[in-house]
């Protein structure tokens, strides 16, 4: 092997994640073989992190020699004047342009009505529609036409606004209230100190929405199940789970449902709709949207290039962390095919390659390397992720499953890590075809919000592993779904018929809501479905004639004076349909979405007539609402939940529904 000098510029490039292809493989191998180089790489990364931080806080350049008095101090007002002038000039140049509403991102602990904002914000600023006659450039040299840039890097740049001025999510949150047309330059606020405490983002329950006001409801699917395992962990420890740790849609989606797989060869997703009485509010209807992804047979799935990125920091020492991680990964390796490849990257104070990419035909080497892992040091997740993606890229399988599997308690606490930067990296890599699966472990130090965000951005999925049984469920029974994506950016838009529906409420999915215009916008990311995955969403619907004004406007909103009351007869479309479900998805490697539509007619089914899957899903949702103390839980109590669930116990493969009954009993004890 060629020895590489520590003064080689490629070492710096490698440390900064700038190498690709053969060069990357060469340097990565050299670094792996040489402890001194590893130290140099770590040092360069530390310096890089310090540089980023220092430069982020660098004051604007001062031009002391020239008219120092004119130099404006950096103050919020400075930005106010300039855009106005700019608009005037801009208006002359552009025939028209569309303003985009700057969505508000919910502050972690404040309000949460604008969920997908973090996804949206990174992208939307590039979306402008300009129909301007092209101006002649007076200086050819500056002509922008001459600049053609390769597309693949586009996403990286598109996602970088927070790097320049608004660094990191914490600060972005500060800046978020900048409503359209109003510029606020916010001073960076200190990031909330990370105590050793579990961290959950605040979510407020979705309210009822009047169809007359907003006939469309749009959200991104979510196949994550982490919340259920986490809730189970709390209850089994005799604690009541924190409200915000309970994400209703993740509870509902934890369970398998028997939705039929799509029949058409070229359609990867099928929808199954059902409507019956809402058990917690019998005057209301409950609509179930069940999506089922195509199942890819294990033998026919493309071969996999996996990189296990394992947190071996001191905080992972507990029995339910690193030992469980090892066990989980061993389960997964045993499930893989000989032509798959696995590499292991560890991260603690210094990140390292514990095992170069190795074919599963040499499984004993992989299992041995897993066995030898020990914990120690503090966590620097960012560096580990960089290395893991480098390895994944070096072994990229075109058309295959390229995935980094991150196992951690999520406590990223050392070094250069800014959450925004990490998210940007992951998002960029996902665009390049390397997806991320996040598995959360442990307790007491568990950062739920961070992990979910990482998985969302990485076109990945997110699970919480609280036991070997859960590891088996995620990594053995559902290995296909965890590894093979069959449809990405799956979005659902429901259009309600105002002649039939007065108001509706999406149960759960609070942090997955999209704006209605995002549905057809292929630049807006959404959740992915793996092989055989099912996704269930529930709407509580107030039929026309049932709603009182207070319900329809939502709590705290007075009824509108001039609008037609939603309960009265609206010029009916004449359609018997209650609603129409539109689904958009992309092929895993595709860029353009395709659209499916499924109408639903309400035949007035009572609870008794509903399917078992429907009843079970409704009871799980009710369980979540009770745990969250949702204002919309109606008559639901744990006793009722248990009764409703007991009606839906058929087809309990794996015994998950039986376990749920036990958990409801457990909750009744804990919450008494």
């Amino acid at each position: 092997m060629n020895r590489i000098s520590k003064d080689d510029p490629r070492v710096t490039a490698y440390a900064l994640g700038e190498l690709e292809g053969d060069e990357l493989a060469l340097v990565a191998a050299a670094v792996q073989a040489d402890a001194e180089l590893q130290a140099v790489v770590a040092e360069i990364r530390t310096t890089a992190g310090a540089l980023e931080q220092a430069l982020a806080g660098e004051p604007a350049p001062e031009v002391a020699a020239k008219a120092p008095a004119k130099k404006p101090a950096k103050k919020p007002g400075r930005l106010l004047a300039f855009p106005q002038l700019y608009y005037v000039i801009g208006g002359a140049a552009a025939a028209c342009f569309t303003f985009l509403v700057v969505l508000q991102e919910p502050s972690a602990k404040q309000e949460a009505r604008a969920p997908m904002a973090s996804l949206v914000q990174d992208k939307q600023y590039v979306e402008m529609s300009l129909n301007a006659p092209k101006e002649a450039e007076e200086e050819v040299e500056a002509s922008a036409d001459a600049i053609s840039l390769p597309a693949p890097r586009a996403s990286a740049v598109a996602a970088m606004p927070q790097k320049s001025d608004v660094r990191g999510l914490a600060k972005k949150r500060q800046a978020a209230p900048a409503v359209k047309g109003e510029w606020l330059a916010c001073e960076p606020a200190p990031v909330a100190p990370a105590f050793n405490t579990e961290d959950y983002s605040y979510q407020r329950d979705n309210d009822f929405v009047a169809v007359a006001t907003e006939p469309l409801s749009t959200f991104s699917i979510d196949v994550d199940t982490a919340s259920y395992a986490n809730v189970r962990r709390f209850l089994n420890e005799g604690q009541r789970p924190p409200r915000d740790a309970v994400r209703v849609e993740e509870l509902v989606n934890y369970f398998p449902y028997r939705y039929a797989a799509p029949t058409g060869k070229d359609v990867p997703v099928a929808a199954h709709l059902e409507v019956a009485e809402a058990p917690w509010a019998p005057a209301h209807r409950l609509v179930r949207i069940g999506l089922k992804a195509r199942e890819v047979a294990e033998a026919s799935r493309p071969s996999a290039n996996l990189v296990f990125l394992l947190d071996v920091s001191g905080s992972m020492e507990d029995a339910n962390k690193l030992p469980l991680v090892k066990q989980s990964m061993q389960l997964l390796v045993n499930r893989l095919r000989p032509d798959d490849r696995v590499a292991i990257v560890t991260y603690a104070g210094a990140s390292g390659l514990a095992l170069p990419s190795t074919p599963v035909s040499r499984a004993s080497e992989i299992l041995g390397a897993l066995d030898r892992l020990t914990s120690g040091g503090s966590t620097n997740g960012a560096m580990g992720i960089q290395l893991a993606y480098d390895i994944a890229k070096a072994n990229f399988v075109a058309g295959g499953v390229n995935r980094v599997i991150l196992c951690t308690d999520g406590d990223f606490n050392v070094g250069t890590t800014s959450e925004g930067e990490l998210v940007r990296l992951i998002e960029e890599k996902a665009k390049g075809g390397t997806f991320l699966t996040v598995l959360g472990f442990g307790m007491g130090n568990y950062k739920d919000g961070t992990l979910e965000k990482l998985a969302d951005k990485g076109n990945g999925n997110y699970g919480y592993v609280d036991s070997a049984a859960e590891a088996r469920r995620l990594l053995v029974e559902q290995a296909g779904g965890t590894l093979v994506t069959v449809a990405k950016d799956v979005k659902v838009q429901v259009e309600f018929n105002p002649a039939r529906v007065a108001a509706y409420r999406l149960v759960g999915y609070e942090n997955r809501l999209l704006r209605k215009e995002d549905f057809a916008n292929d630049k807006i990311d959404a959740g992915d479905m793996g092989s055989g995955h099912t996704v269930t969403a529930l709407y509580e619907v107030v039929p026309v004639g049932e709603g009182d004004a207070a319900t329809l406007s939502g709590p705290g909103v007075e009824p509108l004076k001039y609008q037609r009351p939603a309960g009265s007869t609206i010029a009916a479309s004449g359609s018997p349909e209650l609603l129409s479900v539109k689904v958009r998805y992309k092929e895993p490697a595709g860029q353009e979405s395709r659209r499916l539509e499924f109408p639903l007619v309400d035949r007035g089914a009572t609870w008794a007539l509903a399917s078992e899957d429907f009843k079970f899903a409704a009871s799980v949702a009710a369980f979540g609402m009770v745990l969250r103390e949702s204002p919309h839980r109606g008559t639901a109590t744990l006793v009722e939940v248990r009764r409703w669930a007991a009606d839906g116990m058929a087809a309990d493969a794996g015994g998950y529904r039986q376990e749920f009954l036990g958990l409801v009993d457990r909750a009744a004890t804990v919450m008494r």
Partner: protein
Amino acid sequence: METTFAQHQPALVRYATRLLGDSERARDVVQDTFVRLMAQPPVAVDGHVVEWLFTVCRRRTLDVLRKEGRMKRFEEGQLERVHAEEARPGRAMEAGETHAQLLRLIDRLPANQQEVIRLKFQNGFSYKEISRITELSVGNVGFLIHTAVQRLRQEWAAAGE
């Protein structure tokens, strides 16, 4: 568009000010850059708008310098002259002492190294993007960053941090 402007205008002004040594003209250049952006069909810049802005902003800046016959001065390392060697009062108060010290070290680098270091670590561009913005080869960018990082690393360590 508003968002683009709000997000990148300050960074561009900062960048142009360093090159020009004059914040007023830097603002003019940046404004001109945005006007040009608006004349672009969205597809031409879609997805790499930040890189586009920096590239055009840099060319406009060089045009201004060239017109004023100041290219030579710029190439000689105008930045050293524009910037005081000493830390300016108040800086240590706004950033941590470590950061202030690093910034002082950066200010002592040659102008071309300063520029790529800032593009890389302040604006977050990749080697390739920096190469396109500055019209240097990727290898050249890599060498400049490597040299600068190495020097900063040593000086920083020597300074006892």
